[in-house]
């Protein structure tokens, strides 16, 4: 397949607007502006494009949730927070083709009748924030953004907003809180952002890759897009492969290639002398998969059928050198650190799971630990939490416990009991001198 999203990778001076225009850039936006916003949405709906941010929600459907007759402003937010472990695709698009993203943003904003769009970018991404600023300035100078988008009477301003470095701010509602200047705490849904979003106004949040798919849907048509992959799982997809493969990296492949193709063909297989032990199909929040599932198609529905999820498309490959308990502990540390702390099951659960896993690794595992871990994970999933981060920590960890029980047993069999520590007792503070008269 010829690349669509990574077309510009390797092209000299690819970031410049002239390079982009020369390659037929902004044609999709031009075309969209001649159409009704509803017709644009219809086109995206027909393409069966599904969100690339993790949940895989049909993008066109999301756009239709914005109340059309809503009087005040509406907003589009491009989610460039990309913090999911094992995911590094969005920055690739921004690095080589920022105008592709801006064109996608402009088309999406037009479709939902938003006059302001924000790119919420991960705080550490200073380089890519600068690239976007430059590209936006170029587009504004050419009247592609601003009071009159490409000569039409549609106005659009795009702003880059840098986050302050929290994984949770990639979750759309806490992203919105953070954009409003508050602590990045997720909101309970419903109401969904499409109805009550940033500043209380209807807001669509889309991932960078999702938006980068939109221009080609307009120029080449929904049918072309839908012809890639299989029904409900269409279009080109960026797979970020990391871990114990020979050639890790970002690969643009048609949706629905198998993991075997990705790992063995494109990435050159597992590194020498080792065999595949497990892989996470879609970032660290997806339940782990085992070598017998390597022929599963890397698309939304197939991964879901296999008991996992495509998520962000970050394929993390682990070979036989990996201790799965250590892998689980590693994940637990990440989630315990990144849990925003708002709701009990996720805050306390992730911390508790981390402590148990650390204890097992320190050689003090107990026979009941796997069952306790499973129970903690159960407490934090199934909608018991405000946002899906609860699931994001519970599902992969419980999947490891379930699929690699013998690894836990090995640790626990060799364990020694931990010497009990004394529980400290607080001495009574007693009256404090200083208050006179008492």
């Amino acid at each position, binding site marked *: 397949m010829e690349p669509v999203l990574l077309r510009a990778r390797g092209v000299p001076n690819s970031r410049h607007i002239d390079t982009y225009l020369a390659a037929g850039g902004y044609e999709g936006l031009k075309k969209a502006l001649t159409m009704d916003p509803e017709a644009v949405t219809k086109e995206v709906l027909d393409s069966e494009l599904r969100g690339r941010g993790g949940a895989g929600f049909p993008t066109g459907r999301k756009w239709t949730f914005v109340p059309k007759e809503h009087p005040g402003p509406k907003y589009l937010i491009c989610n460039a927070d990309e913090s999911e472990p094992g995911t590094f695709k969005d920055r690739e698009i921004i690095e080589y083709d920022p105008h592709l993203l801006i064109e996608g943003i402009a088309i999406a904003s037009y479709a939902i009748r938003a006059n302001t769009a924000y790119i919420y970018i991960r705080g550490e991404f200073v380089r890519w924030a600068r690239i976007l600023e430059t590209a936006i300035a170029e587009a504004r100078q050419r009247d592609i953004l601003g009071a009159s988008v490409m000569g039409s009477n549609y106005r659009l301003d795009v702003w880059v907003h840098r986050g302050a470095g929290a994984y949770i701010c990639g979750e759309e509602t806490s992203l919105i809180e953070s954009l409003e200047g508050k*602590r990045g705490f997720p909101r*309970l849904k419903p109401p969904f952002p499409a109805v009550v979003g940033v500043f209380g106004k209807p807001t669509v949040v889309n991932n960078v890759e999702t938006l980068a798919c939109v221009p080609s849907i307009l120029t080449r048509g929904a049918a072309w897009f839908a012809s890639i992959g299989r029904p409900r799982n269409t279009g080109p997809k960026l797979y970020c492969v990391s871990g114990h493969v020979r050639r890790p990296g970002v690969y643009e492949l048609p949706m629905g290639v198998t993991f075997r193709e990705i790992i063995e063909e494109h990435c050159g297989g597992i590194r020498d002398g080792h065999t595949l032990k497990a892989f996470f199909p879609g970032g660290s929040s997806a339940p782990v998969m085992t070598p017998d599932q390597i022929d599963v198609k890397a698309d939304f529905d197939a991964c879901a059928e296999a008991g996992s999820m495509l998520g962000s498309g970050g394929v993390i490959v682990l070979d036989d050198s990996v201790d799965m308990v250590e892998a689980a502990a590693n994940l637990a540390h990440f989630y315990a650190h990144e849990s925003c*702390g*708002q*709701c*009990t*099951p996720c*805050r*306390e*659960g992730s*911390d*508790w799971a981390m*402590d148990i896993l650390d204890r097992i690794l320190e050689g003090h595992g107990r026979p*009941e630990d796997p069952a*306790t871990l499973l129970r*903690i994970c159960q*407490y934090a999933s*199934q*909608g*018991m*939490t*405000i946002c899906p981060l609860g699931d994001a920590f519970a599902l992969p960890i419980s999947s490891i416990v379930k699929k690699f029980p013998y690894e836990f047993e090995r640790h626990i069999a060799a364990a020694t009991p931990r010497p009990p*520590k004394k*529980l*400290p*007792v*607080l001495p*009574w*503070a*007693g*009256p*404090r001198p*200083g*208050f*006179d*008269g*008492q």
Partner: protein
Amino acid sequence: MPKVVSVTVDGRILAARAGESVLELLRRSGIWIPTLCFDPRVSAYGGCRLCLVSRRDRAGELVPACETPVVEGMVLETDSPAVHRARRRQLVLLLGEHRLDCPVCPTSGRCTLELLLHRLGIAGDDVRRWEVTATSGVQSPLIVHHPERCVLCTLCIRLCHEVQGVSALGLERVDGGIQVATFASRTLDCEYCGQCVAACPTGALQLRPPLDPVPRRVGTGLPTTCSLCPCGCQLLPAVRDGRVVAVESQLSWLPNRGQLCAKGRFAHDVLVSPERLTSPLVRLEGRLVPTSWERALQAVVEGVRQAQAQGRALVAFGTPRLTCEDAFLLQHFMRGTVGSPHVGVGLAAGARALVEGVRPVLGTARSTADFTDLAAADLVLILRADPSRTHPLVKSIVLAGMRRRSQQVVMAHALSGGLERHVDEFLLVRPLGEEALLYGICRHLLTESATRARQAAGVAGFDQWQAGVLHYTDEVVQGLTGIDPERVVALARRLKRAHRLVVVVPAGMGIPGDEAAVARAAAGLLVLLGCHRKPGGGLLVLGEKANLQGCLDVGLHPRLLPGGGSAEEPGWEPVHAMARAGAGEVGFLYLVGHDPLGGWPRATHRRDGLEGAGFVVVQDAFLTKTTRAANVVLPVSILAEREGTVVGADGVRRPLHAAVAPPPGVAPDGEIFRELARRLGMPLPSKEEVERSLAAVFEGHLRARHRPPLPTFMPPPPPPPPRTWRGTLLDVSPQLLHSGSVTRYSAVLRELAPIVAVRMAPEDVAAFGLTPGGRAHLTTGTGEEMMMVRVDRTVRPSSAVVLWQSNAEGLGAFLAVDGEARLVDVRRSR
């Protein structure tokens, strides 16, 4: 129109109000739902997950009741095994990192977490018992913080932010999670309201010993009304061994809904202050010596008789903290028993605003808006001072209105405070500029809106008023207020657009500007806008002391009779009376809770006023400066020792219920009046008779609300010449933690905020070369004083805030006569 939604709960069909949350519905219907992070005063949080209920119509999905709005056709289960399991799980998770040192935790027995453990049980689930050690948390002179007992419900944070508007607390990432903390771990410097401690469902926040823990469950006894300001907050003192050891307030008690300020919550230690007077004193050979009540009362009676015999005047001033009953008795005593018209509330902030400002225009010496109107207003205009310093409850009411987005607040004054960063618009007017601002607005409304002018033209006095108002041109107003004409126009338009406008005029000793003039101008503006007496609209004058309104209502004023009628033969106003005393015309001066030498502006009296008076009686709980000139001193009961009723600034009459007996040797004010009257041969009306008279008075006020008198425009004064201010403004208006008189005897409040200190903005402290905690030399035209320097971020640059009343010599000189404002010279002193 609230729509009704029907919801099935545990098989019962309940009628819910559209828009309310499931939790509100369930609580209203008497269904028990455990919560840790919910409080109706603040926004829902959804964190603790104890309120999960199951939705049968959605395959048993568990939803948090506090954050889920009711939906037509919802089917809920609150008592199923799945729900119980889910609740217990949250407790298991919360306990995993909890210290569980209940036996030594002072909150044990009142702790919500403990209560839920006992009620829900966690049997069957093993609790993670991790080594939880004490960690350090928020540092404060008021609060002890144990983060290891915290369940991160954030109630403390949300109350401090949303109800107090202080935002002293927040969450901070620490090793191993998040924790309640102050910004950059600074020592807590806040309003010390104690709300955070009162709301904490666990033992994580405690009052620092020796303060008792805040009680959390209603003890026995009825709530009483706070005596320290006219907000009318309801509180219940917790009593141990005959002493008030703590104060609680309940969410269901109006108007404060469980909220108290530092004064209400902590000033109760003045009851047991060692400085308290516990025996009457009489002057013998120039010295005050303890004596019996019998002798003291006899001395007073002789003083009265002597003045009468000499044909000299008899004058009494009663503090507006007197209960309605006692105030009624005092005026009856003076007017009836003694036969003198010279009785009143003395120099009391707010009295002139009501009697000389509101009454001539609106017909009664009462505010026309109450707290319900204030909450319902869509626009609130606050003048003269920041209620977060003078009337904390008013601040919280408007903060809540702004949070609901149903209210806009505009504030205009020259002083410092903390509310301005929350309001929609703040106009920094020059000192004394509020009156001109109001007339400037009126002029714009008159010239811009012919309809308004036409409608107002029917009101008595319109022509003269309009002619006067028209002198307040843009140029004049700018010269007096320093505000650009465009902003005045914009404000006028904003006021015109409002449907329900409340104008708030706080009064307090030391607030610059003539309170009566501002109240009059504000009343005129409201009449022009047709908002002076409608639901959600009107004028709200906030007096300084707890029962100013009640005292005026029952005729404790030289010009008013009980019920609001005018006295046929008006008595002397306080300043005038003091001048007459100085001239030797007063033979008997009765100062009930007043301290002219310590607490009144020096220019309003001379020491010779007191020396010139033939016989001076001081009735107070403490020795004041004025007692030096007294012939007899009578000790009285205060605060939680008192019975009776008081009327808040909102015009609502509320009861006082004594929680403790006064110390032996101390008598209630009313008893003293009665005893004196009896000895003078003309007993005062009985308790029942007083209550009958008061009932008639308050019924009359109620009727006046429904059939209000017609308004009259009072002509504005000719505009004064423009005023400029350059230098440091001396701000001697009230401070949140000290009302100036009683509270200065509270050791706790004194520790939290020293009395004799000058508070300045950090930039000024630096610019003047001062050191925080060091000393500064303050000089005005009339006095000088040395004071400790405190940095206060709420103080505006170029002003110096000093408490208006204090026992320190020299400070009285700083007080300007009502109407003045002063500049002060601040220097570093070594």
